[in-house]
């Protein structure tokens, strides 16, 4: 195991993160958890805030996610998913669970226009920041701009496909067909993806 922190070598970084998560799962290794925390906690919080979660709530949810990582690390299987993917699903679910609970408590009307996304500029080109680190971003780079933009808006800003259609002022069918084309292309390029 190398402790290479060079950000320009993201493949070994992914292996390092998976190794840390396995150490937390098998040995309750607090030192490994601290390293995971340094990498992921700021990212999780920023990720949630890009989805229009308030700063205070983003802090709370990030703590819940980190705690869940500690508790569930033994169920992480590096053969099935990367550490980032596994943690992404925990963060996503924590966000949804919180939101659904608020809806059930009648604090929020899910269809209230207040909770529709405000007009925002298009996101920075995520791909450039990701530096083709993981194979998936390599695949994203192979997509035409219009298809890549749809996937970026879905994952970075948390827009549904119909919200993406509104944002880009496109017919719903156009967005759906871009999603289909992008996913077909990903499926072709990603036989080895699992």
């Amino acid at each position: 195991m190398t402790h290479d922190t060079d950000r320009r070598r993201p493949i070994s970084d992914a292996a390092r993160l998976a190794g840390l998560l396995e150490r937390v799962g098998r040995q309750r290794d607090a030192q490994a958890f601290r390293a995971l925390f340094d990498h992921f906690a700021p990212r999780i919080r920023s990720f949630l805030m890009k989805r229009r979660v308030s700063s205070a709530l983003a802090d709370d949810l990030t703590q819940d996610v980190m705690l869940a990582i500690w508790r569930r690390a033994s169920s992480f299987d590096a053969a099935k998913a990367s550490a980032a993917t596994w943690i992404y699903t925990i963060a996503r679910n924590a966000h949804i669970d919180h939101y659904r609970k608020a809806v059930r408590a009648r604090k929020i009307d899910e269809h209230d226009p207040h909770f529709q996304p405000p007009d925002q500029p298009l996101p920075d080109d995520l791909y450039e920041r990701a530096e083709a680190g993981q194979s998936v971003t390599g695949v994203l780079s192979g997509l035409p701009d219009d298809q890549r933009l749809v996937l970026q808006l879905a994952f970075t800003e948390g827009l549904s496909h119909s919200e993406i259609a509104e944002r880009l002022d496109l017919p719903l069918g156009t967005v759906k067909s871009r999603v289909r084309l992008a996913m077909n292309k990903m499926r072709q390029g990603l036989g080895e993806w699992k």
Partner: protein
Amino acid sequence: MTQRGHVLDDSWYLDYAAGTLGTEAQDVMMASHVELSDEARDRVAALETLGGAVLDATDGEDVPLGFSVEDILRRAGSEEDETPSALPGATAVVDETLCLPQALQDYLARTGTPVRWGFLGPGMRKAILWRGEHGERLWLLRAQPGVAIPHHGHRGSELTLVLKGSFWDGDQEYRPGDVEEAYPGVEHDIRIDEGGECVCLALTEGKLKFESPVLRAFQVFTGL
């Protein structure tokens, strides 16, 4: 192979993987489908990998965190004995012969929703699990072998996920994990397979539209 209309349009998988579905009923429907269908699980897994890459590429250095890693470790230490799965109402008795997926059982437990069967038609029972504010309904259908659901159309879209047994729409068989998506304007005849009873989870946006006036009258008291 579950292909040819036994999975959904990719936009459903994108919204599910990105966590942007509109309602909890849609979450439950999609989570149940993903649990039961290999094809759906592969699609979602591919998209979640993309989500992981997005998380990893997020620049997290703009604002200092309001807590430290030691806070988390302290919480972990003090709550070590808590079982996170101890949900309120998790004791609800679920009929095992229904073959309900875990995602649906979890939903019923956490919301305290009972499964109450009512008459739907000859050989058919329904249990409404949730009604939305805009006429949406999440419900279970339980039908006896060989039952036919007469020619009907839809005023809104409807997803039907097979949980147990199978049904036929024309020459297409739908088995556990398969979903049929019906749109407004699509008309179909459904026949339950002779082999055994069929249980489906359905998410309906508008009322069903039967051609026969008798069946239309029937809707008044069955509530579909």
